[in-house]
């Protein structure tokens, strides 16, 4: 008995609600589904908070927070040693993720009561939300890597379903398809990684894999492929899985398109929870990365660093507010990956790990807030584009203030939570690699700039001609905004370094003024430039854009990555592989089979001439045949 058995309920409640609403939701009034879903999620939220409190503040031993497995049942036995189990694993990061997921999910449930009101398929929406929550919770609670993979796939599907919620809109359908296939492709990497890992270690269980004194890697050293050790391959492949879900470059293309889904979905899945699954995966496997495959960790760091810069640059040029936020998410995820990549193991060395988790936490809060705020704006204006907005601060005070808080948080203005987490990431990067630090430092400035570009464009500037006067959103929508704003402000004061660390042992952190001060400064510089350019309607941004010409255009078109992918899939896979395969099958292989038939038919047509009806020919054949027989007998006997 560990006292944590009730945690099983945390994922099971959403599952039950998914099944009930999914099967019966059509028959009820829509509101019933909504309220049921929200209530269920609320329960999960409460349970998670209780779990977190009792786990983190229930004391811990010398060795730090030890993992607790309250439940673990065998789901499928593959070989003698490889069993897929379904269970609940509580350790610092999973408990933290529980809180993140249930909080954001609960907020989104409440928010959607207002946002989705009157939509067709309201019940369906709640069913899918519950399905997603279930899968995501299952993912973070996974006791073994295969369970994680299972829920990983489920998360992908729920994301697919939710992005394609407006299934009558072709663009939404295309986006959902894209999201699923791109992540599926990454999952293939994950799967192969798991296969290699399980082949080497003979186990799926995290408690064996992530044990620093792990003995399961005994045979790993001798194995390799193309000059790279098998473990590095495995971990890089697993990272590809994570990169797919977390939309790391170059698998990032699905995330901006995923904004076709309803905004609460974007907030929940594509900002706060699902996209951090990749980060969570790397964090979960961190000891393996660190001890067995440091090269793979280096890959993680650079991919993260590059993605953060790349996405930040694109975010500057976008006009669709959800896309700006999407690229901002990409950039922030890059931050987290980078932090993991530069981290060491244990104590101060593990600062990056801690910082990554910390940033994950704070980012979930403020990015969900940003998205929900954006949803509120879109709800009011009925447009996604900045140039349709302006001067909204007068009409939507609550949205305005919460959005401002979120922007300040992401820009890293102290003492808001974003400041703390970002600061620690920068410290970790500085200690590890100066180039990566430089990139991140630049990105911090860019982040502040594009967020405030957005902010000023939407809430300041001059009024547009709205179809009807924008109004503040209903209470169901503004309460989550306020809650998340509060969380964003105060989350920074959580003593993360004492709770979530790489080796589960607490350590002390301190402010590094050498880093903190410049980073705040560059944030402020970014905000200043944004103020300069966008506070008032002006021609300057356009002029600057014109000056950069091609560069601007490339950035605006996201460096044509969509086009490249489209080229690869449409042209190469469809036209140059699939079509010839189909043709080959129909004409060559099937042609061969049909050919056998035809040859038989033609031959029979030929030799049927022998059946001429001419009696004498038959007689001749008969006699000649007899003679041949006789002769052969004579010859052979």
């Amino acid at each position, binding site marked *: 008995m560990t006292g944590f058995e009730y945690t099983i309920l945390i994922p099971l409640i959403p599952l039950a609600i998914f099944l009930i609403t999914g099967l019966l939701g059509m028959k009820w009034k829509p509101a019933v589904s909504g309220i049921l879903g929200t209530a269920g999620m609320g329960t999960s939220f409460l349970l998670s908070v209780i779990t977190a409190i009792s786990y983190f503040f229930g004391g811990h031993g010398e060795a730090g927070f030890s993992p607790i497995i309250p439940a673990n049942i*065998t*789901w*499928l*036995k*593959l*070989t003698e040693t*490889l069993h*897929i189990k379904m269970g609940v694993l509580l350790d610092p990061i999973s408990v933290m993720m529980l809180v993140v997921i249930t909080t954001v999910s609960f907020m989104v449930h409440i928010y959607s009561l207002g946002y989705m009101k009157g939509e067709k398929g309201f019940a369906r929406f709640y069913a899918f939300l519950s399905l997603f929550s279930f899968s995501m919770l299952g993912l973070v609670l996974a006791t073994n890597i*295969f369970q994680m*993979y*299972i*829920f990983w*796939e*489920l998360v992908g*599907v729920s994301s*697919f379903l939710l992005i*394609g919620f407006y*299934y*009558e*809109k*072709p663009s939404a*359908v*295309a986006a*959902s*398809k894209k999201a*699923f*296939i791109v992540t*599926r*492709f990454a*999952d*293939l990497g994950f*799967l*192969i990684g798991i*296969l*290699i890992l*399980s*082949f080497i270690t003979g186990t799926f269980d995290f408690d064996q894999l992530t044990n620093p004194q792990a003995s399961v890697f005994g045979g790993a050293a001798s194995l390799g492929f193309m000059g790279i050790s098998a473990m590095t391959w495995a971990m890089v492949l697993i990272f590809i899985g994570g990169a797919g879900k977390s939309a790391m470059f170059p698998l990032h293309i699905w995330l901006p398109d995923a904004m076709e889904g309803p905004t609460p979905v974007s907030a929940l899945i594509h900002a706060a929870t699902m996209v951090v699954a990749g980060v969570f995966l790397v964090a979960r496997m961190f000891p393996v990365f660190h001890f067995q495959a440091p090269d793979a960790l280096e890959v993680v760091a650079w991919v993260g660093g590059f993605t953060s810069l790349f996405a930040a640059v694109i975010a500057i040029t976008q006009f669709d507010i959800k896309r700006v936020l999407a690229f901002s998410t990409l950039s922030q995820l890059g931050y987290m990956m980078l932090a993991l990549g530069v981290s060491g193991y244990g104590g101060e060395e593990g600062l990056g790990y801690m910082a990554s988790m910390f940033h994950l936490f704070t980012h979930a809060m403020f990015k969900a807030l940003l998205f929900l705020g954006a949803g509120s704006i879109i709800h009011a204006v009925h447009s996604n584009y900045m140039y349709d907005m302006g001067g909204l601060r007068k009409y939507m005070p609550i949205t305005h203030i919460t959005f401002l808080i979120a922007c300040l948080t992401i820009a890293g203005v102290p003492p808001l939570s974003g400041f703390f987490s970002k600061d620690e990431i920068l410290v970790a990067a500085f200690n590890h690699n100066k180039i990566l630090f430089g990139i991140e430092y630049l990105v911090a400035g860019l982040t502040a700039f594009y967020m405030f570009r957005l902010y000023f464009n939407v809430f300041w500037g001059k009024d547009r001609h709205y179809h009807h006067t924008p109004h503040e959103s209903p209470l169901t929508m503004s309460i989550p905004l306020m809650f998340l704003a509060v969380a964003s402000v105060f989350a920074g004061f959580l003593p993360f370094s004492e709770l979530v660390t790489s080796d589960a042992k607490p350590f002390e952190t301190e402010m590094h003024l050498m880093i903190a001060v410049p980073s705040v400064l560059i944030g402020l510089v970014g905000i200043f430039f944004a103020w300069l350019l966008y506070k008032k309607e002006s021609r300057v941004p356009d002029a600057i854009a014109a000056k950069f010409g091609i560069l601007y255009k490339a950035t605006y078109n996201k460096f044509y990555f969509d086009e490249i992918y489209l080229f690869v*899939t449409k042209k190469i*896979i*469809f036209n140059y*592989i*699939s*079509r010839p*395969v*189909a043709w080959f*099958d129909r004409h060559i*292989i*099937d042609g*061969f*089979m*049909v050919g056998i*038939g035809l040859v038989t038919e033609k031959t029979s047509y030929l030799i049927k001439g022998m059946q001429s009806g001419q009696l004498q020919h038959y007689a001749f054949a008969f006699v000649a045949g007899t003679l041949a027989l006789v002769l052969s007998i004579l010859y052979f006997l």
Partner: protein
Amino acid sequence: MNILSLFVVVPVLTIVGILFTKDFKGARVVSAIGMSIQLVLAAALILMYLGARKAGVTDEMLWTADYTWFKSLNIHYAIGVDGIAVAMIGLTAIVVFAGIFASWEVEYLSREFFISLILLATGVFGFFISLDLFTMFLFYELAVIPMYLLIGVWGSGPKEASAMKLTLMLMGGSALLMVGLFGLYYNSAPDGGSLTWNILEIAKIKIPVEAQRFFFPFTFIGFGILGALFPFHTWSPDGHASAPTAVSMLHAGVLMKLGGYGCFRVAMFLMPEAANEMAWIFIILTTISVVYGAFGAIWQKDLKFINAYSSVSHCGLVIFALLMMNQTAMDGAILQMISHGLMTALFFALIGMIYGRTHTRNITEMGGLMKVIPFLAVVYMIAGFASLGLPGLSGFVAEMTVFVGSFQHQDTFHRVVTIIAASSIVITAVYILRVVGMILLGPVKDPHHLELTDAKWFERLSTITLVLSVAAIGIAPLWLSDMIQASLEPIVAKLTVFNPF
């Protein structure tokens, strides 16, 4: 009477019952009753089997019985089942049950239709319970031949040509198979003594290796043709495209499994040395099958063609996994057979139902069906998800078992082909989502489609049965997997003795 014989007797009685009915209503009711009894029997059999195993019965085959019916060739009616056969019987019962309801509205010569259908089912059940190679072959032929009539008479499109092609190719397979089986028979007593057709007895002796080398390809390809082994799969698209709904269901769902089942139960189990020697050839062929089928499916426009190619890919995986010759992979292969059987039957049932409404199977002519016929569309999506391996549905369990099992192989070649085969899950996702996106989602393309009606009760019954089965295996696979693994032990033991790795 032996419970296994009931599986042959009940369909035969049903056929007799149908002969006494007057119109199509009577025929379908009788068929439904007969096949419901069969389903209940199958469920009872599974429970009894699990019970017997739990009680500690360790015989390789349960409920064996043996009657000689053709003395001079020593042919017996020898029956008995292990966990694998039980699972396959369960699969067959479910698919046939669903098939009857999916063809509830066949009015043209419906008595003859149901008789042929049930005759086919009889053959399949008989095949799975047989332990005597000749009797097995007999049932196999019994299952293949009604197919010709079913496609030729009740099919659509170029049905005569397709039926001819399908039957001829399968008969070609039978011919090869017969050579192989006779080879087995005449080598079944290398040290003198009486020849036998009995699988278990042949398994006890060692067939001379030269004979194995000669007869293994015959037997394996013979069964492989039915299991859509590349490059002998081309009957599948045409045959499926022309076949009526229930026949496609049974054919892809069950009949193709006879091929896979025969491959390991007869070819590999009885000729292990040759199997080990030649496995690499067939592994390459099936790897091609898996990837190639998936790519082939992307380009198709006809729903049934897509599914036929997808079957090629999935059934390729079955034989692929069988050839890996370790317990996990073979377990995966059988799970994949069951899973594919259920979900492809579901697919074909749905395609039939959609075709019955829209009168087209061309995916470019449909769109937005989710709005019009939500029930069918949702079930179609579930089937699609099962096909692309979504956890919680059977496809995932099967595929993962296959991949993990195959990857445990010590040989690099096997691991590399596993990775290649695994890449098919992405391609599968592409074509499934393409279809789902085109026909179910998006705006309604054809205004006539707005007036379509959703599933009727029998269609719901048919599809829900299959969905529940798919989900049941997907959510709780352990009992099935255990049952299969236990039964695989003697087979794997025999195979691995000769395994060079």
